[in-house]
């Protein structure tokens, strides 16, 4: 049990460190730009935009909040990201990390 707890802590620390490196070097911005481009290319953005419009239409503009919309589209948005986009991003992050000696 203690082991599991320990590992979770370590994982969180590692994640924080990686995130910090990504921000520091500006790589995070580059990845965001790449992701944005890929999601537009594969139609993800249009699809999600349409989905948002449908939800707003269905519930009425007056009765919907940002939180509702986020809660509704997040699962769908995640599910719709194509596997090869995820793979490409993962690959880019791996390449980046392999060049960082200090992590």
């Amino acid at each position, binding site marked *: 049990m203690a082991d599991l707890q320990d590992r979770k802590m370590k994982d969180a620390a590692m994640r924080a460190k990686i995130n*910090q490196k990504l921000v520091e*070097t*500006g790589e995070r911005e580059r990845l965001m730009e790449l992701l944005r481009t890929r999601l537009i290319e594969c139609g993800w953005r249009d699809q999600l935009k349409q989905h948002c419009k449908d939800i707003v239409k269905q519930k009425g503009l007056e009765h919907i909040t*940002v939180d509702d919309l986020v809660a509704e589209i997040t699962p769908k948005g995640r599910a719709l990201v194509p596997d090869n986009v995820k793979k490409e991003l993962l*690959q880019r992050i*791996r390449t980046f990390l*392999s060049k960082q000696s200090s992590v």
Partner: protein
Amino acid sequence: MNHHGCQHLNEFKAAKGTEPFRIIHTCFIACASADARRLKAAHCRCHTCNQPAFRLHACLHCVYFGCYLDKHIQEHARSTNHNLAVDLHYGAVYCFPCGDYVYDSELEDMARSQWGKASSSLGIKERIFAPWEPNDTETELLRKNPKRRKVEVASTVGLRGLMNLGNTCFMNCIVQALIHTPVLRDYFLSDQHDCQTGVVKKCLVCEMTRLFQEFYSGVRTPHIPYRLLHLVWTNARHLAGYEQQDAHEFLIAALDVLHRHCKGSNGLNYSNPHHCNCIIDQIFTGGLQSDVTCQKCNNVSTTIDPIWDISLDLGPGPPCGNNNNSSNSSPGSGYSNSPGNYEPTSLIECLKRFTKPEHLGSSAKIKCSNCHSYQESTKQLTMKKLPIVACFHLKRFEHSTGYHKKISTFVSFPEQLDMTPFMSSSRNNNNGYCNQIVQESAKSLSCDNKYSLFAVVNHSGTIETGHYTCYIRQHKDQWFKCDDHMITNASQQEVLNSEGYLLFYHKQILEYG
């Protein structure tokens, strides 16, 4: 969307101005320097739970960062009555009393200029895909034309037959293929051709613009391409008359004329033919690398030539033979390479043969630039640069010495094609990545060189007389057969089982250059 914020934001701006927003934005959202990024990386954590959470928000009133999802920023707003916060990823301002993000044009302008600085400091190009916002002229046009059409999966807009004007099926099938070339369609439908010739009626690019309008107008009766035919006749004399013509020859002539008529519209220096930036060159031009290795000193001399299509031999082919002669200003056509004497039965085999090292025998000695003597050598063709649209020409019409015949062998071709093995970089792949992980993942992920089939031109009949038809793809996976004025449904299997004369593939992923 309201661009004047909300009452609460306006009150805040009246009391404290835009400076708090600007400081947060430049220091923690869009950083334009390495120092700022270092600070951002160190400090962007929730002040309550100390996590670098998603959707972190910064209080606009005091120094406090809090997670939105875990409601730490909401708690802060409630307990301190600080009712405005900035999203630290996107820079949008959230108003707690309104329960919504609010948009203020003054703050948005600041944010935009700051994003620009941040991107350029990292060498990221300006965002190509800012959402379209119609300007005044466009708003006016939209108001005048209230009819909107949404393109659904079942929509047939874009499909239209073409009348045969007397043995013009060679032209019709190429027009269908070009009309359904995705990148070309996007170019023409977004009205990007700015005609510089001054004589619209004589410009083939302007005629293509009109053709695209015709195809996408929603009209279902066949279109009569008499103006196009006239332009082809006046610009490519060898295709004039009511004779039967070769569709491949027409394709090359059409690309050549389009390329010539585009010139002058791109403001670039076009004295160098290899650096043309016209839409035709952007889409169709690839780079073919030819490596000639001297057998004596192993010196490799490399040349790269622009090409618009790849012509592939089908027959057993002579043991030796080369016919590269392209000295005109437009990228050449009809590159061929035919070592070996077997008959390929698939596109992949044709490409393997095309890129195989070929021994230039004693009858074709070349002067080596290194050892300055005439030597036998080997020559290998590979793809240095892949075009966005790859046209493969299966050389079914053989005009060898003494006889002319059509080769009707079935050559299978895939719906998805990976060009990686035929790239110059695969020629000697010992160099490059040294990291094992990178190499392995790169292999499984070489989607950069992957292509999808979108049009196939077929010829039925003999070398003297016959008929051209074309299969084209609509949307992602719907196929249609275009037989002059007739358009019928087709299955993908039917397309892949067809004989195939010209095969059109487009890249699955576009890089932005």
